[in-house]
């Protein structure tokens, strides 16, 4: 996967020793920051086994930056949820009326 061209056709630079930073792949052994940041979503979805969770937690305790990444992930989720609540792209009133009328007039199936 390393050296695979990006859509822009430029090969992506990955630090040596860290090929294939796939978020879905559990991390075995010691967890470094570069591993942790790919596991945040799995961690929050509780899609990590107890052994990996323990190692991720251990890393979190020792690393302020990664703890901040976890917080920021939570903030991103909260902000996206705000977008849903804001519902700025609600249905326009004319369309709503038309659909409500169609609903009212739909004959019941016997």
């Amino acid at each position, binding site marked *: *996967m390393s050296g*695979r*061209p*990006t*859509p822009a056709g430029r090969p*992506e*630079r*990955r*630090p*040596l*020793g*860290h090929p294939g*930073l*796939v*978020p*879905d792949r559990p991390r075995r052994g010691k967890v*470094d*920051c*570069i*591993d942790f*940041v*790919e596991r*945040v*979503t*799995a961690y929050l*979805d509780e*899609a990590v086994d107890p052994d990996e969770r323990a190692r991720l937690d251990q890393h979190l305790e020792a*690393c*302020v*930056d990664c703890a*901040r*990444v976890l*917080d*920021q*992930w939570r*903030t*991103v*989720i*909260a*902000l*996206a*949820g*705000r*977008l*849903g609540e*804001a*519902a700025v*792209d*609600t*249905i326009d009133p004319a*369309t*709503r009326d038309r*659909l*409500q009328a*169609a*609903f*009212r007039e*739909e004959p*019941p*199936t016997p």
Partner: protein
Amino acid sequence: MDFTDERQLVAALRRRDDAAFAWLLERHDASLRRVATTFVRTGSSADEVVQETWLAVIAGIDRFEERSTVKTWIFRILMNLARTRGVRESRTVPFGDLGPDPDDDRPSFAPERFRGRLSLAPGHWRVGAGPAPWDEQPDEHLAAAETLVTVRQAIAALPDRQRAVISLRDVDGWTAAEVCDLLDLSEGNQRVLLHRARARVRQALEDRHQEAAR
């Protein structure tokens, strides 16, 4: 009347209870439009697909067999209509067994932000390259309308599949299982797409913070 109770909802829709249908529109219309835009080329096509979906819901509610939730049923109708139209507009359908988009395996943070293998602490943040602290006051942050604009724009700019997954999971609050089922994704792929999407939104917020700080 509790429309979150499926039985009451279906019964009310079959009675042609205006309030029940208004509740459905309120609850799902915006979200249907978000999903539709991942399959068709233009906003007006998306609007049309969403309207067709509602008309199909109206025509089909009496035959709805309650083997799935009303929500899943409505979104399946949308997916079928959107796929058909997407094919007609010769836009590639971005879901199913087509394999990952090359864009989907970009790392969450630029690799340059971490130390290389030959350093003292390989794989750790380089000095000063950690995440910028843009969320020190979460409440204040969440309240800023500007912040939401940044999030909205970042989501709009995502590749199709990432946009669909983050829209359903984080904007609309669907579960992972519901998203996998609707979009025909494996749990693992769903998570990769979601993670990439969140990473880009995070980066957009960090960029905005740093611009503001300059």
